[in-house]
């Protein structure tokens, strides 16, 4: 029962009543929960089935609650229109109200409030890890100056301003009789100062603002934890010490403690990131558990920082931020995917639970103390000082920024200062003995949270649309954009060198060189390092899309049946960059089970993408391969660059149907053009078996895509002799497909 009390506020009467109402006959009158149903009372006859509620009570309740929260989310998503208008987080809170009301009605006590320990240890870390792991590093670090300014100065300003104003108003008598002194006001101000990453993420990703704006608000919300923790602890300590003991020394200690907590936490994060990268270098033979290491080591960084009273959020943020590149390069492709999906599940799930419980926790009349002045003024001050803080800081920053932050963006930024679970958790952690008005503060915090999440969340989208913020485009970059972006980087650096200016890009180049010479050899596997070429990654990724669409279309047409198989022995699963292509070529030439009169001379080095397609076709005419395996053999182990979408709901590579179809159709169309004119007419008549018209059509659809890869290469690069020969692939392929 001591365990239980930590996670849920079970009142003892509740436990007893659960016992008496639910216990079966065999456990008799044993009302204590500890023995879990193996009652001490003597049994008179052999029980066939016993009711062992206490045996499973804790895990059962936890699992049940998780299920309920996720069901709520499921229900929400059934009504698409609803989620468009109102952000999901607001809806979840409202549902939480309903659930809380139901519980209150049933038990007359709020048995399931959100405990700070649960929140800080089991619900928050994965959200922050998810944020850090998928953080767009380049954007993050290039705006780091602005982010730090907002995080540190902005948060301190918020805390001090709110605290002092409330104190001033209190002195002025607008709040009636309260037992608070200035230090407690400061403490309250500090716990309300933190912009909450969970709430910000939840609302902003529905809105899709441009990436600079997003990264500013989001980065700020992540980094201000360092400040909040320090402020909170310092004020808490001051409250304990008493106002008289505070002198200059203590204040200096406070400032020093900020530096130590912030940098210490970040340092721990970086250390664990290094450990994690080194670890993933060695896990080549353990690909099954490989993904698990990420979670375990990151969580350890969180706990270690917490143990050392440093900023745990900063630790896990930087752990994710620093390790993402190396871990993604070192791990197997499947592990990368696993980590991505698992992290999304955990983060999304936890966020849902947090918001639902934020709603539930409110339905508890015991904690409700209403003081109009206090509450309304707090809400007002929080809003106003956020706006002032953002505008002043932006004005200062714009004098040094290359691209200034516009007024519209500033409005959104100040409006996007949402408070959430962290503020609530800190409020619950307040010591009732020291702070007499804890309940008032708790209520106010809840109201501020609801105000920001629900009201501001709901009105954010209309506001954004109304102000016509430069919204980020949702589409994937095409090759030329990526190429050009890289070209721009080079151009800018060159121009800076020529014109003798030092700028951002100079520093970034220097860092890149340093990182490439020293850090990468240490933290990245050798084979992974070789395949780090970014442009090739993009190409690879686009070919992946092609391949996916090819397979999808094939499956739809039903003519890829040959490609399904349980026989894994035929797999060619290449991880190395390109060295073993030559190994395969002899196989191809020797394995032509279809007696093709034309020997196809293949060059010594081939793009593996097309090679695999052709090779698979050749080796497995009647053979079967699972579609997934087919996909995999298409691919080099060049690392995918996941384009960050600032969304915890979408997972990136899984593009929506339309986009895939578009690319497929475009590829198909252009290939079909070149085919129809020269080769298709000839080969079709020769070798095509009599078949239905639609099958021919499907083949026409299929072949271009199948050939999209290698026809591109071969047609344009080989001699006419080879061209003629490669055209013989088509009848072979068609024959294969027909069978």
């Amino acid at each position, binding site marked *: 029962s001591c365990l239980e009390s930590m996670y849920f506020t079970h009142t003892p009467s509740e436990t007893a009543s659960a016992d008496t109402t639910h216990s079966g006959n065999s456990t008799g009158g044993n009302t204590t929960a500890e023995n879990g149903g193996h009652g001490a009372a003597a049994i008179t006859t052999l029980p066939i089935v016993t009711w062992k509620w206490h045996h499973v009570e804790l895990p059962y309740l936890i699992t049940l609650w998780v299920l309920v929260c996720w069901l709520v989310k499921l229900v929400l998503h059934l009504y698409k229109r609803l989620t468009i208008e109102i952000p999901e987080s607001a809806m979840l809170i409202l549902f939480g109200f309903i659930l809380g009301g139901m519980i209150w009605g049933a038990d007359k006590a709020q048995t399931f409030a959100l405990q700070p320990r649960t929140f800080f240890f089991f619900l928050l870390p994965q959200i922050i890890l998810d944020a850090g792991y998928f953080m767009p590093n380049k954007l993050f670090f290039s705006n780091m100056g602005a982010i730090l300014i907002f995080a540190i100065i902005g948060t301190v300003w918020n805390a001090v301003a709110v605290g002092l104003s409330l104190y001033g108003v209190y002195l002025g008598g607008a709040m009636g009789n309260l037992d608070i002194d200035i230090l407690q006001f400061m403490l309250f101000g500090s716990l309300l100062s933190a912009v909450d990453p969970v709430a910000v993420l939840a609302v902003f990703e529905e809105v899709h603002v441009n990436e600079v704006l997003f990264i500013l608000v989001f980065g700020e919300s992540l980094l201000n934890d360092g400040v909040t923790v320090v402020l909170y602890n310092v004020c808490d300590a001051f409250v304990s010490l008493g106002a008289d003991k505070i002198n200059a020394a203590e204040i200096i200690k406070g400032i020093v403690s900020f530096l130590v907590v912030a940098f210490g936490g970040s340092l721990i994060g970086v250390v664990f990131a290094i450990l994690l990268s080194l670890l993933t270098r060695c896990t080549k033979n353990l690909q099954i558990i490989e993904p698990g290491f990420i979670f375990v080591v990151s969580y350890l960084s969180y706990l270690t920082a917490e143990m050392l009273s440093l900023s745990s959020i900063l630790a896990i943020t930087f752990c994710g931020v620093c390790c993402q590149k190396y871990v993604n390069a070192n791990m197997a492709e499947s592990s990368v995917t696993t980590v991505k999906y698992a992290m999304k599940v955990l983060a999304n799930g936890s966020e849902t639970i947090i918001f639902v419980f934020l709603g539930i926790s409110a339905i508890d009349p015991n904690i409700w103390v209403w003081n109009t002045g206090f509450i309304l003024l707090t809400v007002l001050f929080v809003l106003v000082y956020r706006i002032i803080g953002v505008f002043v800081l932006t004005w200062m920053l714009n004098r040094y920024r290359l*691209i200034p932050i516009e007024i519209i963006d500033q409005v959104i930024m100040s409006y996007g200062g949402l408070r959430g679970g962290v503020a609530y958790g800190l409020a619950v952690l307040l010591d009732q003995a020291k702070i007499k008005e804890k309940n008032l503060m708790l209520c106010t915090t809840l109201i501020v949270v609801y105000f920001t999440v629900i009201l501001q969340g709901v009105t954010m989208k209309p506001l954004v649309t109304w102000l016509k913020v430069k919204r980020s485009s949702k589409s994937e970059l095409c*090759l030329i954009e990526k*190429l050009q972006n890289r070209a*721009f980087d080079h151009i*800018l650096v060159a121009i800076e060198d020529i014109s*003798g*200016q030092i700028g951002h890009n100079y520093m970034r180049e220097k860092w890149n060189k340093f990182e490439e010479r020293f850090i990468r050899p240490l933290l990245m596997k050798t084979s992974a390092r070789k395949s780090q070429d970014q442009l090739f990654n993009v190409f690879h990724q686009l070919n992946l899309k092609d391949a996916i669409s090819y397979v999808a279309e094939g499956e739809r047409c039903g003519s890829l049946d040959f490609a399904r198989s349980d026989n894994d022995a035929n797999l060619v699963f290449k991880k190395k960059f390109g060295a073993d292509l030559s190994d395969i070529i002899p196989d191809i030439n020797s394995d032509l089970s279809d007696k093709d009169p034309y020997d196809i001379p293949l060059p010594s080095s081939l*793009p593996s993408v097309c090679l695999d397609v052709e090779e698979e076709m050749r080796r497995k005419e009647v053979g079967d391969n699972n579609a997934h395996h087919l996909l995999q053999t298409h691919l080099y182990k060049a690392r995918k660059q996941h384009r960050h979408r600032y969304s915890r709901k979408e997972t990136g590579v899984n593009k929506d149907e339309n986009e895939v179809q578009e690319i497929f159709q*475009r590829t198909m169309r252009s290939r079909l053009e070149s085919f129809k004119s020269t080769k298709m007419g000839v080969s079709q008549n020769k070798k095509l078996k009599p078949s239905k018209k639609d099958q021919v059509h499907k083949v026409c659809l299929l072949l271009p895509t199948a050939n999209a890869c290698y026809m591109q290469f071969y047609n344009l690069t080989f001699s006419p002799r080879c061209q003629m020969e490669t055209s013989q692939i088509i009848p072979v392929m068609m024959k294969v497909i027909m069978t």
Partner: protein
Amino acid sequence: MIMFFSSPSDVKNNGHRRFFPYCHIILIPRGVSGHESGGITTFFARRFHHVTDHSCAIIMGSGDSTLSKIPNVEELMEETGFSPAHVVRLYERFQALDKSKKGQLSRKDFESIKELATNPIRDRIIGAFFAQGQEMVDFHTFVRILAHFRPVDKNRPKKANMQEPVNSRTSKLRFAFQLYDQDNDGKISRNELLQVLRTMLEMQVTDEQLESIADRTIQEADLDGDNAISFDEFRKSLEKVNIDHKMSIRFLR
């Protein structure tokens, strides 16, 4: 040890001065005329520049003197939008690069910038400075090319007869386009694209892979099916990119 005095008129033109870590301060005795003082400072600038490349922040005795040395400077500033301080600084850089004091830069001068050595598209960028057939770059051209990289002025008044400002989005894109389009036929052909790709991709990417990437790139960007990318197609495919951000650098005063 030499120190630098500025005449009172300096404060008006060049209200602030920057001191760099390795700034060498030069004393010019009073009475030296503006013209001569300019000569002396450039003399010292050239001597000292090899020590620290960024020491060319020596502020001239009076901004007037340097500016007066540059022919047609008002027209230049008008056309490119640089402030006098920018122009002065760029002039100093120009002279620092112009080792043989020809008053013009040759390709060798550009290639001697050691930081450029590791830049994959170095040759193309250097080539962008040299107009067709020219072998030397004078200061005006130098500044004009660099002006492409000024941040876009939002509140520049549009004069009726003014042609496209040098640092507008279109001009920036055109600059980038011309890096690819070496033969200036208004299209990026497959070969030209291949050449650029070859320079920008590592050696281990094989030619076939390169060609497939080039084909894919053209296929995606090419709208009219001529297997080459025209300037409009180029611009269209980059319409979502924030060109202002990507092609601007901060010009230090």
